[in-house]
């Protein structure tokens, strides 16, 4: 049902954009909304980054997936238990660009009283297809915002349409992103566990991006639009001299642009921020050098604890009888400063309440 509602919302967005163009609201859908959405994206992301950056990470808690650096003759897994900053950078690179943790994925099946584990790399493949294609498609779009188009974008375009099938030639990434998206969507619908944990807000971005991809593909291969006019508009947006070109552009373009605008505005306030969040993940971006390099917690506070003196006084007789040495040098500890989250009025001053 959540999937259905998400689909209806996306269809609703498409209809809004379509009616908008019929009503002649090109300025609204071609200039105002894209600018507003882009502004929300930028400000929203800045807000998110600051909101994470300003919260301290109190402890150094890397998840180690390989051998620690210890004795010199023990082979250290530099990628899975990074010790230096450089090794952390490497680990993050593999995590962010190659989805290394997802690549480890397994599947568990229970047969009678035996658990069987199998490789399960489909999710990794689907995710890689989707994310990389999306990234390359975004890069390709730079040609709409630049004049002259940078050489590497032209080359990228050439490589992406390498097969030279059809006129205009089909982009490989268009096919791959569709494959990736459809896989991710079907997985959410069909796999009982994933289906069970999915919210409407998990389907919505999938349908939204699917809408963007399909409208884009249609624009290129089926419902052709005036590319020259499109570029006039997009270049105007990029150079902050926005104009609606005199030559009409088909509604499909405004639908595409509207969906992109919705995605941009939705991005910072949804789970899609995982793209930025991953950089902050303390189990991945911290070094496993805890015992060698001290991590400082800005809100560390002294706590109340029992002392050896109190302990020895309590057990003095027993210890003497048992022949355990008594420490006569130890003195009672003077009242020391302590705080507690659990004692009203003793909250540590370094922690706001």
């Amino acid at each position, binding site marked *: 049902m959540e999937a259905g509602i998400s689909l209806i919302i996306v269809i609703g967005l498409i209809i809004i954009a379509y009616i908008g163009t019929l009503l002649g609201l090109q300025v609204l859908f071609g200039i105002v909304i894209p600018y507003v959405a882009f502004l929300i994206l930028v400000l929203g992301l800045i807000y998110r980054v600051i909101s994470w950056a300003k919260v301290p990470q109190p402890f150094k808690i890397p*998840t180690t997936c390989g051998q620690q650096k210890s004795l010199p003759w023990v082979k250290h897994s530099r990628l899975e238990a990074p010790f230096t900053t450089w090794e952390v950078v490497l680990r993050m690179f593999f995590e962010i660009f190659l989805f290394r943790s997802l690549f480890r994925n397994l599947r568990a099946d229970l047969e009678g009283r035996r658990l069987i584990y199998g490789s399960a790399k489909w999710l990794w493949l689907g995710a890689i297809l989707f994310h990389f294609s999306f990234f390359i498609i975004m890069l390709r779009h730079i040609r709409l915002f630049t004049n002259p188009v940078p050489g590497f974008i032209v080359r990228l375009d050439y490589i992406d349409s390498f097969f030279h099938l059809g006129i205009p030639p089909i982009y490989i990434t268009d096919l791959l992103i569709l494959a990736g998206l459809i896989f991710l969507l079907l997985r959410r619908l069909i796999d009982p566990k994933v289906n069970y944990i999915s919210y409407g*807000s998990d389907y919505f971005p999938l349908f939204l991006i699917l809408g963007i991809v399909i409208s884009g593909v249609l624009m290129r291969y089926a419902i052709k639009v005036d590319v020259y006019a499109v570029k006039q508009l997009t270049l105007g947006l990029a150079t902050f001299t926005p104009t609606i070109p005199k030559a009409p552009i088909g509604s499909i373009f405004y639908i595409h642009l509207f969906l992109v605008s919705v995605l941009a505005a939705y991005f910072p306030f949804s789970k899609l921020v995982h793209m930025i969040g991953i950089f902050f*993940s303390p189990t991945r971006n911290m070094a496993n050098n805890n*015992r060698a390099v001290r991590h400082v*917690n800005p*809100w560390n506070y002294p706590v*109340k604890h029992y002392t050896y003196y109190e302990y020895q006084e309590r057990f003095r007789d027993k210890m003497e009888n048992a022949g355990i040495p008594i420490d006569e040098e130890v003195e009672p500890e003077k009242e020391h400063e302590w705080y507690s989250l659990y004692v009203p009025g003793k909250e540590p001053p370094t922690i706001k309440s």
Partner: protein
Amino acid sequence: MSLPKPDALLKDVELHKTPERHWMDIEPELKRGYFLSIIDPKVLKDLDLPSLGTWQPYDEKWPLPEDWKERIKKEILRRMETYRSFKLFMEICVRCGACADKCHFFLGTGDPKNMPVLRAELIRSVIKGEFSIFGKLFGRFAGARKLTEEVIKEWFYYFYQCTECRRCSVFCPYGIDTAEVTMIMREILLSLGIATDWGIKPVHNCYYIGNHVGVPPQSLKENLEFLIWDFEEIAGIQIDLEKYLNRKGAEILYVPMSGDYFADPGIYTMLGILVLFHYLDLDVTISPFASEGGNFGFFNSFEMAKRLHAKIYEEAKRLKVKWILGGECGHKWRVWHQFHNTWFGPIDFLEVPKSPITGTVFEHAKDNKIVHICEFTADLIAHGKLKLDPSRNDHLIVTFHDSCNTSRAMGFFEEPRFILKHVCNNFVEMPENTIREKTFCCGSGSGLNAGENMEIRMRGGFPRANAVEYVHKEYGVNQIACICAIDRATLSSLMEYWVPEVAVSGVHELVANALVLEGEKSRDVDLRRRPLKHPVKGVD
């Protein structure tokens, strides 16, 4: 233990089927055998912790204070402002489901709320429903719900069905760590006074008596004496205990775990370590006050953990040692490795650890000055400082269980394996997907190793037991070695239930079995009096 037979226990487990109803509509049903009793309010008071009086989880109405909702919300916000980990983990999950079947409790129960993603959703949904505009507007569509008394019950039930093992965080593409979420949620529950008997009593013992099981100093000595007398009978070698207890000015402070001088089979590990100390004539001392390296405080709140472990460096200072050696323990090493010098540092009153036998400087522990006994022993073996006869372990076919915390919070894999391969001839690994960073929890970590929740323990421990069962059937494995005191206790129950032919031991028990001691007498039994395959010819 009114448990079903092993073959019947998992009849209701379906890993690929989910309930008809949305999880938010399924109210928590607190099943006996799954949850722990609530702690006596007196014990909480002794520890300056809040309490809700005398009550139990199965009470229809929980005695929550009038302002419970405001207090919980305040505590959640406080964590969002002080733990980046928590804030981030609450905000970036995409529910890809990669973690779903990685949790041993999910694999043993099939309960969808034991999928790590849903365990975290139990709180994530409330944060959305109570603090986010989107969540308030779109409700369930955005995965949001309100904070109710039922939610509190659900938190108690499911955050005490997580052993903080971090296996899910290995597979999560963003490294979301459910252990962190569970620890913080238990902290938040504690702030109302919701805490378990099994989780808090050891804290109280450890705080006032020095160790979890509440062994006072004279009994600690008696227990150790019993061990060395037994050893004298077996090997004819006398260990001088006096010099190890509460002696000032030694070079090294050794911190054991109470499990290792309290009950079988942990005691043989303790004995193994004493034998090693004797063999090396090591200048080492043990503090009866700091006679617990483990930390049940960690299973209740970070603050309680810090309050318990303060004594370890304090004792090192008082006893004027140069550095600290820590025994074979799991979560202890999570705390020692990842938290100690942040809490108590800089540790400038100790020296960088250096093995007095080999001269090796443990550079990787140069800041917090604590070395793992397996690092110490592996270094000895690598330098040929131990005379070992691995055939003395030939009656055993050994496999190794990687403990969760040393594996995924420390990266401790090769040192114990190196030792095992030198002290026994028959060493077999369990299947690849169940060891090292993918190791399975014993099912009873993080303060769940009680008797009253035996059903969930046997279910949660099933994936581990199943891998042991496999190597037992395939290769005749009859001994599982581990480096965790809780494991030694809990794997014993687990094996008894699932694979009764397999015994549990620490690594150093096997080291001591294989040690060729000067002046030893002939014997035909090992440290725990099991018959040897090749009797030892001594000097008698």
